[in-house]
């Protein structure tokens, strides 16, 4: 394992193992760092002019599983990791169509690196992991799309149907040069922890897009502050499916989580949000796909229903789009109840139709349950109360009645989902329940708990 230093004030003397002998080109040091565990250390406030003022597109290629660290020059071979922030960068401050790529199918760690693309009204892109098989982990780094041209992107992976790319960005700062800019996760599995948008740049009207490049994989975000984004978090995913998971993130006021998707089915983007909100609310769960949306509703709920703070109650509200059907329904996330017995039980889920006293039928709304019906394995058996394929639709069973709900209109109907027969778990454990809605453009309130009798 060796250290290779990079600084504009170095003598560019191999093996670049001190600040005095530092390479005056990042590419030189990266080419030298060919052994696993090697470190390339760049002086954060003395990036060589060729690397901070590129006149044309540049690709930095990693040659091994190494670390690239931005640091202060403490003399000799001493250093203190120091982020470049938005004062220093690798790339350019020049206007023009200047792209910055990171390539190399290796496991690479980066600290404090800022990548800046060409500015002005020219097309430019920053691309991480521009190699099939790249795994990059970046801490306290900044991706700076400096172009002010419309529809430019920060791309977090290579593009290509057969590409595997992973990127983990811890406390990243994303800086944009235009409100039409966006992040494109492309073919990567992406984890973003503690991300933020630089207040010095523009705020995207849509944060995540596909921008005409192939997309697959997922984006997992935890503790990100997306509050500046008040337009849309996820745009239409016409170029491939993508799952987005937001956990304990701050959202923008009035933000739309998921734009209308094309294709208008689950082959586009889906979004899960856990405990994310624009304000001081700590109970939200959201799920969105092209077939509908699920949110927590605190205005209408079962009187003995699920609680969100130990006192107050809530329901899950499903609003379906025009795109779902009996055959391709909107499906809620699962909710579990722990069951310690192995005797026959009947699971049920209470739900409500608001604004009409007409019962929902079993081709419009139905429940599904998964229980451990096989002894000796965790294998689950699934049952439902959906209309049989060749059967006529029938009303779902009556529930506790509208007197058992709060907040609904005078005209409402209370129903209950439950399988036709009892179930007999063969093992103790969780009995899982979820609700499917096959009727387009309706609203259903669900008490998100499976009751066992």
């Amino acid at each position, binding site marked *: 394992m060796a250290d290779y230093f990079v600084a504009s004030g170095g003598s560019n003397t191999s093996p670049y193992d001190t600040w005095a002998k530092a390479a005056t080109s990042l590419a030189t040091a990266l080419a030298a760092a060919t052994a696993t565990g090697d470190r390339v250390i760049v002086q954060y406030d003395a990036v060589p002019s060729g690397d901070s003022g590129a006149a044309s597109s540049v690709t930095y290629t990693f040659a091994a599983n190494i670390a690239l660290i931005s640091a202060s020059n403490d003399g000799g071979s001493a250093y203190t990791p120091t982020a470049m922030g938005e004062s220093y960068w690798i790339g350019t401050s020049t206007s023009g169509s200047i792209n910055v790529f990171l390539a190399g199918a290796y496991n690479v760690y980066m600290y404090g690196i800022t990548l800046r693309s060409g500015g002005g009204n020219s097309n430019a892109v920053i691309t991480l992991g521009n190699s099939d098989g790249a795994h990059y982990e970046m801490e306290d780094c900044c991706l700076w799309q400096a172009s002010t041209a419309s529809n430019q992107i920060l791309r977090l992976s290579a593009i290509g149907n057969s590409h595997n790319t992973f990127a983990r960005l811890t406390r990243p700062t994303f800086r944009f040069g235009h409100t039409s800019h966006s992040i494109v996760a492309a073919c990567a599995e992406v984890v973003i922890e503690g991300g933020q948008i630089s207040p010095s740049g523009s705020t995207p009207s849509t944060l995540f897009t596909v921008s005409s490049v192939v997309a697959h994989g997922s984006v997992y975000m935890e503790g990100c502050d997306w509050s500046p984004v008040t337009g849309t978090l996820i745009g239409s995913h016409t170029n491939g499916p993508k799952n987005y998971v937001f956990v304990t993130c701050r959202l923008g*006021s*009035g*933000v*739309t*989580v998921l*734009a*209308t998707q*094309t294709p208008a089915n689950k082959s586009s983007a889906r979004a899960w949000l856990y405990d994310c*909100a*624009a*304000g*001081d*609310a700590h109970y939200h769960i959201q799920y*969105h796909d092209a077939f*509908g*949306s699920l*949110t927590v*509703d*605190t*205005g*209408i709920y079962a009187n003995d229903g699920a609680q969100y703070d130990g006192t*107050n109650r809530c329901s899950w*509200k499903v*609003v379906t*789009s*025009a795109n779902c059907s009996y055959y391709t329904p909107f499906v809620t996330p699962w909710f579990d109840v722990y069951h310690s017995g192995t005797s026959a039980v009947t699971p049920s889920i209470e739900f409500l139709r608001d604004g009409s006293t007409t019962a929902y039928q079993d081709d419009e709304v139905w429940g599904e349950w998964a229980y451990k019906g096989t002894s000796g394995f965790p294998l689950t058996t699934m049952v439902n109360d959906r209309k049989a394929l060749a059967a006529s639709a029938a009303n779902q069973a009556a529930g506790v009645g509208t007197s058992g709900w709060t907040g609904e209109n005078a005209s409402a109907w209370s129903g209950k989902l439950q399988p036709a027969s009892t179930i007999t778990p063969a093992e103790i454990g969780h009995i899982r329940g979820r609700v499917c809605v096959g009727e387009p*453009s309706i*609203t259903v309130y669900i008490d998100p708990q499976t009751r066992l009798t």
Partner: protein
Amino acid sequence: MSIINTTIEQYPQANGTVHVVERHTDHLGQQYMRTWFSDGHDIEAMATAHAAELEAQLAQQEIDEVLGDG
């Protein structure tokens, strides 16, 4: 491509926010749904603005499709 109908559903929440469901329908009968939480926003104005955005997007899609076919 034009949006010929917009419906807005509003669901008041315990913390004063309002869950909003917009359904926009174009002249071909295709429906576009948007859901969001309002915290004091002018909901009617937001829905109108979104309908205009949708019209622009749909028009651009039409252009792209024509160019793509060419």
